[in-house]
């Protein structure tokens, strides 16, 4: 308490006034209401269907782990999680790579078209994907690719098409965030790099990218979550249910799960788990990434 840093940091003890108690009470109630659906999903997933069908959901008992085993097998979750990885990992890597290149050039050089380019990239991310569906669908249907490339023979119904469309949609947001970050880097670093004879590519790859690690980490966290959660493009561009990523598999499963909500709950918990783990493990990155993009100005 006597050290200067401690006194500077010490928050004055505020009394528990009526207003503060009311605030905490309100927040506690809201939080509880917000957690009910999630906690209830976990609870339902742990219960035997026969038991809840007989005694109702307000009863207690009939706890089991079987729903998880059954949902994993019936839903072919191992395959679906693998599909999600096949789509998400390349899409995120490609998005960050393409976005960081444009952002680098936009931040490094001052051109007339900078603002137009940045605007065009950022706007693309905000367009409703459904409004682009018909041309994308027809375009992918008409692009014929060799069978070793895609079993369907076209970009429709192939992972390549889905990775491409996810990348195309996310590049805008990442370009916007990264170019803001890169503009804040001191210009002098490039001058000394040029004195050393570094090429543009070396300046980008060896100088700028390592300095952008914090924002790249934040964006990677966000993009993994977003593309993993992506539902629309996967559902409409992949017609073969076996190829569906885990997020889109739920619709196909709801038929099989029709009468058993406990099984649906187990499936939902398993699908939610990766994003929730990412959120808790990388909360700082997650929040900073989101606010980086949205609150500048």
């Amino acid at each position: 308490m006597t050290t200067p840093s401690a006194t500077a940091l010490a928050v004055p003890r505020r009394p528990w006034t009526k207003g503060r108690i009311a605030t905490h009470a309100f927040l506690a109630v809201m939080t509880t209401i917000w957690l009910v659906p999630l906690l209830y999903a976990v609870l339902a997933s742990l219960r035997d269907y026969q038991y809840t069908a007989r005694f109702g959901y307000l009863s207690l008992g009939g706890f089991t782990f079987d729903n998880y085993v059954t949902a994993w097998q019936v839903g072919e979750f191992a395959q679906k999680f693998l599909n999600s990885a096949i789509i998400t990992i390349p899409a995120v890597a490609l998005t960050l790579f393409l976005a960081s290149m444009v952002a680098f050039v936009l931040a490094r050089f001052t051109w007339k078209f900078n603002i137009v380019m940045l605007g065009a990239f950022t706007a693309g991310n905000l367009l409703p994907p459904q409004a682009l569906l018909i041309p994308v669908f027809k375009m992918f249907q008409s692009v014929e690719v060799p069978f070793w490339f895609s079993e369907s023979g076209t970009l429709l119904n192939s992972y390549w098409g889905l990775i491409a469309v996810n990348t195309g949609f996310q590049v805008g947001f990442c370009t916007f965030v990264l170019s803001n970050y890169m503009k804040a880097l001191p210009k002098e670093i490039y001058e000394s790099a040029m004195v050393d004879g570094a090429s543009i590519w070396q300046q980008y790859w060896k100088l700028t990218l390592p300095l952008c690690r914090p924002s790249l980490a934040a964006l990677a966290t966000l993009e993994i979550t977003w593309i993993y959660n992506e539902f629309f493009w996967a559902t409409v561009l992949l017609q073969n249910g076996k190829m569906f990523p885990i997020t889109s598999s739920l619709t196909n499963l709801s038929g099989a799960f029709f009468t058993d909500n406990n099984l649906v709950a187990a499936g939902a918990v398993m699908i939610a788990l990766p994003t929730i783990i990412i959120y808790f493990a990388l909360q700082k990155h997650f929040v900073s990434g989101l606010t980086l993009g949205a609150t500048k100005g």
Partner: protein
Amino acid sequence: MTTATKAPVTGRHRKARMSTRDRVTVALMVLIPTAVVATLVWFPAIASVVMSFFDWDGFGPFSEAKFVGTRWYTEAATIYPAFWPAIQHNVIWLLVLFFIATPIGLLIAVLLDREASHTKFYQTSLYLPVVLSMALIGFIWQLMFSRDQGLFNAILGTTIDWYGDPKINLWSALIATSWRHVGYVMLLYLAGLKGVDLALKEAARIDGASEVQTFFHVVFPVMFPINVVVLVITFIDSLRAFDLVWVINRGRNGLELLATEVTRNIVGEAQRIGLGSALATIMLVISTVFIIIYLRIVMKEDR
């Protein structure tokens, strides 16, 4: 080598001094990503608009398609049965997010910001739904809303079909979507509130303004950029709402939305490219207005 680098490196000369290899590098670094975005985002956007004025069966070459003027727009507004319900549902969606979910998110953010300490748990829990996909949220709320196995009916002792009854399923979907929207708005405003200069609040307090007055007359106006961002996000999210209603019942029976109708006209039983493109164009026009507002705010510094 040393002689060449002796000249002071100034910003003005930087471009002129670039080697051919560097020029090619820069060009490729811009052109490749631009080509990707142009092919997958901007070309389809323009194509949607063009196709909405043509009668194309989707199989022959597009050059043989017949120009039909505004026929698809007229048909959408007069014959297509899901058009007006979809518009109405999108508007209700927007109104609920705007007048209910967004203010709740703002209120929570203000309270969290004011309390400052011991709020980590509230913050984390309220934000949790935002990391889940809308499709998954549809299934999580099914556990609440299901007619035979849902928690709501078990507690209320009713047999309401929350997701199925066309009179109420839109409201059920709105509860589920608000569950997520509140957390998102809360996070954005928390960041915005942290950016408000404490001296401003202090000055207002010294002038004798109450806390509520300070908020509405000082803090809220100062957050203008974030207000616009939240407004735009609310509008655009209402316009592109899709996943949730698609997992509930593929957007039928009281859950029609513009996004589901566009989708239905291309992946449904019958392909109606012209009509679907007309609906898509309507979405594009509305979103463009908000995108322009958004860009003007977030890119203010760059202008």
